[in-house]
């Protein structure tokens, strides 16, 4: 059985082993076991970072000078290589405690000057929470993983171009040795942006999520509180595209580029929403732009790097390779991980033996290279040389089978020409690729190999769980504040808007010219109708033989059954427009009631009803006088008629009126001001309830008004008959109540009214009746004419079509 060497520690393992038995490193590409062990891989891979973070956090928690790095629980989780780093740091700390303290002072000072959110991060006490955070910041943002993997494997993506937009980290809060770049600062923090679920809240905000800051978190609202590299972020972003070709591949870790790509793509897709997002950002971080937030937030991630760098430099000033301002186009391009960046030197450390063979210049790890300013475009010296190199890195460098590939620094640009394709790696680099030697090639979902592109694990395929885990995630959707409408919806909305606008704007009424044949025809019909009515009204021909329906006889019988002087309730439920018809229908009834000296109580649920009622009585008397009849001369209207007035509330008031009529209409039309209660009127003597009326007559012009009385009042009437005097338009729909016995009798329309007048021996308005019948007959003729015209037109059309 062949053995498999660990890419981390070089120890041999069984061929089918997944993890190194010594350092627990991932032996095989994680993509191959993605489906089953993605989470576990993630936890393993981020341990070194989480440990560093936790170390910082525990250090910030401890009082100054105490500065303990040890955390037993944490120690057990960290891999060996990191343990060696920490062990070495511990040794150096013991050797030079002052510097160690100064480093911690820097840290504490940083903590003081850091925004509150950073303090909050640093003051996290629960280890689980710390691990989660460390996991989170290592994770890539959603949507960036694909880009990152493509960048590494395909080399055709423009993520490197976007990676150049990674913000430089620089500021007063950063130790001096990190300020050496002045303009540029690694933005590897951006790479720590994890998946959405694991993202810190401030990173969620970067992605446009409505992240809520924890209570103790204060947004870095003012620029001076932010690191300087935040302020230069935008400039770096803008210049990045211009200078991307000047940078060598590997200047920016792929995951940084991937993050930038994700940011850019999101920004492009939601271009219309950028203002909304900015507004949300403003609420989240007042006074800062989105990018400033994106960069400013992860400032805490400089701390592990800072400490990593400070460990070997504990006894001297910050290394000149970072202290000295690095000039040149590549650095102006604002990528914090340009040449000589912290992650690059880690990778280059891994390839040290090869570099020593192939570089003709100064040794990369020589002290000269560290102290001399690096000219633009040249390789930057390595921070660790000779003995400064950590043991684990030395081991890796010396082990042939564990040499790291430098693919993690391969950053294909959008042009695809300034970058080296994976297949175009230099021969020496191909030769040292450990993946083919130690592990089977893993295939990504897209058939491309996913390779860790940054960090100390760079080059290991599928080693970083966040990469693989994020493959399953889709790009975060860009939510638009604008309502997206289809064309049809837009057309409907426009139509509705136009309709509403037309309604709100008064139309300029103009005298429309009668040029439309239809309008002219309508005018002609009107003229003919009026002429016929006038002519027929002038005739004095008597009317005989009118049909008397059964309900009319019943009505008459009920009226005649009312005792003389009995109280009768009259409800006038019609609008003023129907007063002409109702007057003519009700005249005969009123005549009979007054002839019987009945006491009339008037009420209405129509505001104009009480006045119309009085007018009807007056008009009835006048009409009778005109036609030669007379109203009962002994009828004293003042004492026999009481007007209860208006009942507000429609059917509700009728229900109240049926329940307690005296409370519902306490004051009449004329007694509201003097306070006289209507029910003390002589006309209502002996009446305390609706059942006390001898009859209830409803004069209704519509189905609704009649139905209201039938539904609300009639059930409470008991034996008291309810009679209806209905307009012709309401009669057809009130007939069923007649058939059901709810209505005891009905006069429906003018014709029935005239018949009742004949029955009650009330003089008729012959002129009116003649006009009415002529008008009805004219309508019949018009319908027939219409049928003839239509038939003729159809006939002509049929002939035309047959001849054509």
């Amino acid at each position: 059985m062949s053995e498999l060497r660990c890419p981390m520690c070089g120890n041999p393992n069984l061929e089918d082993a997944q993890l190194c038995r010594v350092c627990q490193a991932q032996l095989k590409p994680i993509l191959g076991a993605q489906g089953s062990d993605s989470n576990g891989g993630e936890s393993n891979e981020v341990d070194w970072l989480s440990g560093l973070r936790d170390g910082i956090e525990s250090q910030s928690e401890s009082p100054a000078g105490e500065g303990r790095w040890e955390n037993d629980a944490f120690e057990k989780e960290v891999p060996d290589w990191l343990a060696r780093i920490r062990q070495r740091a511990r040794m150096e700390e013991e050797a030079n405690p002052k510097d160690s303290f100064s480093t911690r002072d820097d840290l504490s000072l940083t903590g003081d000057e850091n925004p509150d959110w950073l303090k909050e991060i640093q003051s996290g006490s629960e280890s689980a929470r710390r691990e989660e955070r460390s996991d989170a910041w290592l994770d890539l943002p959603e949507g960036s993983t694909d880009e990152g993997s493509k960048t590494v494997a395909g080399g055709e993506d423009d993520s490197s171009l976007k990676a150049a937009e990674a913000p430089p980290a620089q500021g007063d809060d950063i130790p001096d040795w990190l300020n050496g770049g002045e303009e540029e600062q690694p933005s590897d923090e951006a790479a720590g942006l994890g998946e959405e679920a694991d993202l810190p809240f401030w990173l969620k905000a970067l992605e446009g999520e409505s992240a809520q800051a924890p209570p103790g978190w204060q947004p870095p609202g003012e620029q001076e509180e932010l690191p300087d590299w935040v302020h230069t972020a935008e400039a770096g972003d803008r210049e990045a595209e211009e200078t991307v070709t000047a940078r060598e591949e590997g200047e920016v870790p792929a995951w940084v580029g991937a993050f930038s790509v994700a940011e850019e793509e999101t920004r492009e897709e939601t271009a219309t929403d950028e203002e909304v997002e900015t507004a949300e950002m403003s609420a989240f971080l007042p006074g800062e732009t989105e990018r400033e937030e994106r960069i400013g937030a992860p400032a805490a991630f400089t701390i592990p790097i800072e400490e990593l760098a400070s460990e070997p430099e504990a006894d001297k000033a910050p290394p000149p390779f970072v202290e000295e301002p690095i000039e040149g186009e590549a650095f102006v391009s604002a990528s914090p991980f340009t040449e000589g960046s912290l992650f690059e030197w880690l990778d280059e450390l891994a390839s040290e033996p090869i570099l020593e063979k192939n570089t003709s210049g100064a040794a990369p790890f020589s002290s000269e290279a560290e102290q001399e300013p690096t000219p633009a475009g040249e390789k930057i010296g390595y921070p660790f040389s000779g003995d400064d190199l950590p043991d684990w890195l030395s081991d890796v460098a010396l082990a042939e089978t564990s040499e790291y590939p430098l693919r993690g620094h391969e950053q294909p640009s959008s042009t695809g020409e300034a970058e080296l394709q994976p297949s175009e790696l230099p021969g020496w680099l191909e030769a040292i690729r450990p993946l083919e030697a130690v592990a089977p090639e893993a295939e990504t979902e897209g058939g491309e190999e996913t390779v860790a592109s940054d960090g100390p694990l760079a080059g290991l395929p599928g080693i970083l769980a966040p990469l693989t885990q994020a493959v399953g995630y889709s790009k975060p959707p860009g939510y638009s504040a604008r309502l997206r409408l289809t064309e049809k919806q837009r057309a409907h909305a426009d139509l509705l808007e136009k309709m509403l606008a037309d309604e709100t704007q008064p139309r300029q009424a103009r005298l429309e010219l009668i040029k439309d044949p239809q309008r002219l025809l309508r005018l002609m019909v009107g003229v003919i109708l009026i002429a016929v009515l006038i002519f027929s009204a002038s005739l004095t021909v008597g009317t005989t033989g009118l049909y008397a329906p059964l309900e009319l006889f019943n009505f008459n019988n009920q009226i005649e059954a009312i005792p003389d002087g009995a109280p009768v309730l009259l409800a006038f439920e019609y609008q003023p427009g129907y007063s002409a018809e109702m007057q003519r229908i009700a005249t005969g009834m009123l005549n009979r009631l007054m002839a019987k000296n009945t006491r009339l109580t008037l009420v209405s649920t129509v505001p104009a009803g009480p006045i119309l009622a009085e007018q009807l009585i007056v008009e009835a008397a006048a009409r009778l006088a005109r036609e030669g009849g007379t109203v009962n001369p002994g009828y004293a209207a003042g004492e026999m008629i009481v007007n209860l007035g208006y009942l507000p509330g429609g059917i509700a008031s009728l229900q109240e009126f049926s329940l307690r009529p005296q409370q519902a209409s306490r004051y009449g039309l004329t007694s509201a001001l003097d306070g006289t209660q209507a029910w003390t009127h002589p006309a209502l003597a002996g009446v305390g309830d609706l059942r006390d009326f001898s009859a209830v007559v409803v004069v209704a012009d519509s189905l609704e008004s009649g139905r209201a009385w039938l539904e609300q009042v009639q059930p409470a009437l008991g034996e008291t008959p309810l009679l209806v005097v209905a307009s012709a338009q309401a009669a057809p729909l009130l007939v069923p109540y007649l058939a059901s016995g709810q209505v005891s009798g009905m006069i429906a329309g003018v014709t029935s009214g005239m018949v009742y007048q004949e029955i009650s021996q009330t003089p008729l308005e012959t002129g009116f009746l003649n006009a009415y019948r002529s008008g009805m007959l004219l309508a019949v003729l018009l319908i027939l004419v219409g049928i003839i015209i239509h038939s003729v037109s159809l006939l002509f059309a049929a002939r035309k079509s047959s001849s054509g």
Partner: protein
Amino acid sequence: MPATDLFWTLAGFILSLLIFSYLFGDNPLFRLASYLFVGVTSGYVAVVILYQVLLPRLVYPLLGGEFQERSITLVPLLLGALLLTKISRRFSSLGNVPMAYLVGVGAAVVIGGAVLGTILPQVQATLDVFDFQTGAAMASKPVAQLIEGSIVVVGTVATLVYFHFGAALQPNRQTRRHRLVEWLAAIGQVFIAITLGALFTGVYAAALTALIDRLEYFAATIRMLTTFF
């Protein structure tokens, strides 16, 4: 004729003429009369409500009522005050409570009236057609009454079925009413058309009466004005 009567007569006459100008199409005169009519009617209704509703049912009990009556009247007073906030957009939400009160009362009244005043009596009347103990069946021509009653029952049921729009999903994914329902709906359509024809006639008759009255009014007013001047 008193001057006020002349004024009112002229006002009514002119307004009627302005309305009749609509025969020639929409025009400013017709609009003038319409707006005046709406304004006058609004003012009249406001006055009637003040004198017929608020004064007798709200103000008088509060000012001159007994303690119990005053206490009871405080509730509609409060609700009415809240309802007045509907005028303001800012405070209109305060008026939701009295509006809810109104809607609740109205809904209950509608339900009670519909059940007790229409549905049950009309259903009972429909069934009574076949009750030979009632007067209809005991009429002089029971066969004719029975036929007429059957027509009424079929027409009533068919009309109700016509307004039933429930349908089942057919195997060909089309929704279609049951065949029997379709037949009854077609019959109901005929009865509805007959009823609508009767309603059309009734509306025309009512309008015709108004037209005749207006013609008489014009003639009478002109006669009166000619004699006056």
